[in-house]
């Protein structure tokens, strides 16, 4: 008799464990590096599980398997993923697998302008979660070499060149850093920063005379870029080791430098070219696949992640900036405050040209930009108009074939 009671109790206990706590699966192209995924599981999610009793399995995924998996689940009509996080472009590529999330409640106030970015076709494909951008990090040692008349808060590309040259002339070292490794964000630098700054567009004037000027400038600037640049995927390490003093990269890929040596670095806006100060605004959001097995609990997670508390936690944890208005004012002090100052200065500069990451045309377009860079800048070939024209035609064909309009600033 006693035996039976024990067995029954065990079964009851096990069923609470198995059926008691609802479980949802969160697939994400964001927070993918191991430290970040660890942080999501150990810091970001526990308060949510405590409040709602919903267990979340977080799966970080690369872009390619992310897209494959969501499209396959949509095709099968049966899903295992409850909620997804991705960049604007990730959603553009998986748009057909996503449900309309306009009915989902948000945990903070998201401005209509930002919310509108998540609208694709007739539906709200995602709810904005966090934003990031790319800017420059500067070691304070470099400030002594700043050319006369240059203001770091409104630097131009010509001044950047003079600055890097000045450092090289006086120290004999190439202290400028541009990430150009295979896993780097070099393509973003070219299509979202250089092209808009020099030509005012990222696609339309790919092969214009202004672009020729730009590539010639870049070849000149490259003389002062640290020659190990083609092996670097992110700039925090070379900044910390002192290999470079001035570096351009994504905020998340610069953050570690500020965290480890807060007093050594400042964050400043990217330079301006003849057409203006080109920069990219990156938007990451949360969506629910059509095949989500548990839409209700997925909605709870979205509400939590867009709440001011979670938004500040995300900024503190991974350096992505809030979208909820309540959180934006509550930026904590330290490394993030310095970064946030740079981000705000860049976004609010009077000559700003905001660019978007192209969506819905796959990723092959990146090769057009990086191949051109490799040929003209790294391999040092002459700036060849015919090559530019060929590449420009191939680039525009990609948009035409995908039936996608050019992203900002080209659609102004």
């Amino acid at each position: 008799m006693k035996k039976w009671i024990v067995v029954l109790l065990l079964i009851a206990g096990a069923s609470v464990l198995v059926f008691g706590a609802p479980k949802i699966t969160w697939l994400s192209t964001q927070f993918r590096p191991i430290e970040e995924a660890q942080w999501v599981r150990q810091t970001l999610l526990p308060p949510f599980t405590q409040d709602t009793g919903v267990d979340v399995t977080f799966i970080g995924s690369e872009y390619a398997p992310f897209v494959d998996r969501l499209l396959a689940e949509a095709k099968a009509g049966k899903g295992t993923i409850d909620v997804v996080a991705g960049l604007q472009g990730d959603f553009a590529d998986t748009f057909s697998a996503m449900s309309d999330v306009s009915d989902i409640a948000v945990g903070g106030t998201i401005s209509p302008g930002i919310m509108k970015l998540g609208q694709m076709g007739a539906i709200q494909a995602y709810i904005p979660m966090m934003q990031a951008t790319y800017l420059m990090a500067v070691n304070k040692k470099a400030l002594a070499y700043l050319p006369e008349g240059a203001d770091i808060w409104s630097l131009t590309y010509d001044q950047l060149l003079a600055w890097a040259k000045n450092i090289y002339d006086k120290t004999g070292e190439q202290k400028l850093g541009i990430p150009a490794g295979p896993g780097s964000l070099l393509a973003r630098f070219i299509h979202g920063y250089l092209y808009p700054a020099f030509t005012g567009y990222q696609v339309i004037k790919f092969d214009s005379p202004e672009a020729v000027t730009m590539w010639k400038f870049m070849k000149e600037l490259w003389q002062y870029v640290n020659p190990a640049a083609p092996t670097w995927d992110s700039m925090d390490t070379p900044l910390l080791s002192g290999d470079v003093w001035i570096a351009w990269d994504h905020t998340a890929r610069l953050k570690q430098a500020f965290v480890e040596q807060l007093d050594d670095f400042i964050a400043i806006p990217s330079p301006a070219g003849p057409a203006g100060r080109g920069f990219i605004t990156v938007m990451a959001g949360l969506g629910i696949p059509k095949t989500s097995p548990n839409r209700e609990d997925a909605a709870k997670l979205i509400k939590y992640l867009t709440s001011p508390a979670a938004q500040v936690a995300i900024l503190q944890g991974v350096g992505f900036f809030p979208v909820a208005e309540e959180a934006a004012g509550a930026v904590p002090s330290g490394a993030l405050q310095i970064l946030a100052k740079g981000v705000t200065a860049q976004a609010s500069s009077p000559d700003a040209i905001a660019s978007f990451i192209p969506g819905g045309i796959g990723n092959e377009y990146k090769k057009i930009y990086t191949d051109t860079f490799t040929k003209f800048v790294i391999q040092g070939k002459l700036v060849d108009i015919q090559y530019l024209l060929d590449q420009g035609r191939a680039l525009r064909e990609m948009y035409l074939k995908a039936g996608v309009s050019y992203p900002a600033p080209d659609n102004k």
Partner: protein
Amino acid sequence: MNNYKLQRLLGTDTLLPYWLLLPSFLYLLVFFMSPLVNAIGLAFRTDNGVFTMQYFLQLFHDLNFGSALKYTFLLVAIIVPVQLVTALVIALLVNTGFKGSRFFLYICTIPLGIADLAAGLIWLSIFAQHGYLNSALYSLGVINKPIYFISYHNISFVFWAIVIAEHWRATAIVLVNLVAGLQMISKDYLEAAEVLGARPWQRLRYVILPLLKPAIQSALIIRTILAIQMFAVVIALGGQLVPVLAGESYFWYSLYRSYHMAATYAVLLMALSIIITWFYMWFFRPKAGMVER
């Protein structure tokens, strides 16, 4: 179930081997043949299923194709022979059975357990601007500021760094093959040769090497095919400064998201692997008049 019943179930004794082979055949069919056929399909057919050569044309016009082909062949041509010689020397040394030879063999095979990407990163930390090599040279007073070993100014150094790293990493697999082959050689042959007055060099040239041929052949096939497909070490050390075919296939899949182009590079690699394997089989074929063991 007794033997008789089993025989009735499976058919005759002659059918038994085929039954035993069936699981591995099915495995190969599902996990090797079907992706292979798919890859060929992706390389030669558009999304609408129409036969096309456009991906191969695009491949030949790809900015990196020429240099990827060049570097892949150069790496194979340098690494494989050097590895064979190194492995042969170590294997012969181990085979003398000197005191501690087992331990020596274990040490030499350690890199077998290290993933290729990890091996590449280990060597990157040696050659980096503030890496071990520069630190060592600096503390010895040889240099007064770091040398940029890995840089686009000095691609040939990056190339040799890859050769060194790959030599360190993958010689062990050749070594294991050769040690196994050496241990298969009966001592009788060597004793006979010694009795007949063969010097050590002659024993190596006329007894050991001919008997080791099958082991050398399989080691060469495995090593060459793996070397053709090499890319993690290359990427860790040189990014895309030294492009290789397998790396391009990977980038077309992961960075640029074109299955077709990735498959086209993969099909090219497959063709090269088949040609090279065929060449080795032909080269090492038993020649007329030779006595097979």
